């Protein structure tokens, strides 16, 4: 006969979340292909494209420099990159290796798993922004006030939230083999089309027409504003509302994709 001793029925959630977040973080961090590209890539783009003309004014008579403007662009590019690729590709891979099957049999609540994934991606995004910021400050001579630095960091992180939903959705929709291609195919062109690498007025007209409907375009207005660079026009409130809308839409997509995958696997 079994001896059933009195004991707690459920594990406390916070320590579980702590462990899970740590595990998710080192899982990402120990893959050099991911950690170096996510953390170093935005800084590298800044060095190649932005550094040469970093100290020049953004336009004639402007107080804001090209370096500061491009710092904001790359901060947004970097954090969204971590969310879409980190979340998307790692989820697709884990599904491909059936890691989710064993997890499903444990008492780990799905919500803890997803929050841990989001937290670990946010930490890597913060690291990317810090590396970029140090480069822009040290080599690019970016002169932002303390509150501007903080605002930029905070806004970049906030703007990354809809991309968590997008990465999550792609992770459940794409197969492990196609995930890197699909995410890059979606992410890189939209970054260009949103004016993150080249100002929109240098891009062909049809891209300029599409741009306002892209989440990175809306995010770009928000981060450019934080360093005092001019936006494409329109009110910042509208941009925030768009970002809110994208967040809802992408999380709904993610939820739908998750349910679809669970239905396929566990019914």
């Amino acid at each position, binding site marked *: 006969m079994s001896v059933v001793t009195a004991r707690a029925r459920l594990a406390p959630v916070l320590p579980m979340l702590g462990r899970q977040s740590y595990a998710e973080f080192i899982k990402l961090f120990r893959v050099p292909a991911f950690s170096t590209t996510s953390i170093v890539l935005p800084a590298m783009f800044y060095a190649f494209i932005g550094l040469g003309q970093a100290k020049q004014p953004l336009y004639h008579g402007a107080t804001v420099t090209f370096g500061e403007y491009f710092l904001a662009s790359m901060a947004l590019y970097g954090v969204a990159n971590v969310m879409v690729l980190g979340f998307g590709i790692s989820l697709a891979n884990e599904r491909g290796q059936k*890691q989710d*099957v064993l997890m499903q049999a444990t*008492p780990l609540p799905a919500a803890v798993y997803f929050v841990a994934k989001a937290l670990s991606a946010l930490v890597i995004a913060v690291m990317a922004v810090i590396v970029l910021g140090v480069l822009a400050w040290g080599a690019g001579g970016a002169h932002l006030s303390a509150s501007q630095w903080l605002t930029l960091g905070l806004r970049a992180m906030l703007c990354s939230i809809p991309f968590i939903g997008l990465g999550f959705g792609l992770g459940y929709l794409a197969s492990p083999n196609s995930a890197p291609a699909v995410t890059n195919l979606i992410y890189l062109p939209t970054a260009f089309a949103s004016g993150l690498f080249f100002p929109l007025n240098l891009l062909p007209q049809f891209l300029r027409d599409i741009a306002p409907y892209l989440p990175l375009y809306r995010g770009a207005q928000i981060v450019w504003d934080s360093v005092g660079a001019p936006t494409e026009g329109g009110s910042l409130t509208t941009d925030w509302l768009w970002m809110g809308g994208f967040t809802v839409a992408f999380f709904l997509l993610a939820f739908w994709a998750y349910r679809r995958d669970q239905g396929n696997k566990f019914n």
Partner: protein
Amino acid sequence: MSTPVVELAHASKSYGEVQALQDVNLTIEPGEVVAMLGPNGAGKTTSISLMLGMRRPTKGDAKLFGLHPRDRRARSRVGVMLQESGVPGMLKVREMVELFGSYYPSPLPAAEAIRMAGLEEKAGSLVKDLSGGQRQRLYLALAVCGNPDVLFLDEPTVGMDVEGRRMFLQEIAGLASKGRTVILTTHYLEEADQLARRVVVVNHGRIIADATPASIKARVAGKRVSFATAELLDPRQLEGLPLNSENVEDRRVRLLTNEPEAVLRELFRRGVAMQDLEVSGADLEEAFVAMTHEEVTG
């Protein structure tokens, strides 16, 4: 009576056209060590999936500790080894065990779970660097690290070498002797015999026998005697023979027996004209088929 650990009540499961389980009734009480035995595709894994709430029964009901199998309170008392599952390659063995331990209310120290699985030397290695057998031991460590009341082991010794298997079975026997409930699937009769006090034989989605290992063994260890007859065989010719099963199709006769010599002697004595006589060892699959619909009690 305490609450049963597992209850399947009229549980059926179909995947599209394929009927994987048909009207299965099974109750497992605390402290039992049960082996589910059957050929590939018999429905063993599907049964386990229903018990664990990883799949929903098409018809009928599945309960774990009297709760819905997906209930966290039920899950928190269960450790599992699954056949087709993966673990993150970029975590170290110790990290992995500590992580899984945190899912459970009163886990074992990670070092103890690792020791039980015989993985001490690999505790600091990345999971991706483990061999197939070591990976299987990691799954054992993950199954026991939550200090569960019940262990579900789906074909746990697949991919293990002889020594690993021996150690593994010893460890499971140790857990069982401490009052843990163990439910394992296997297609090795000897594995079921070593560990279990109750063997549930599954074939074609049905439970065809539920008895002690000894009585199952008596059924399965037999020989197959098959021959053709010139005339259609009179069923009375087979009466009173020590047969486990008989199957007469047209002029083809297939018998399953533990005493082939006695059966043949008697058939000759009765003057049955046999052609194309063959005596061979019955394979497990055939023994399962022979058991279909026979209640074996022991």
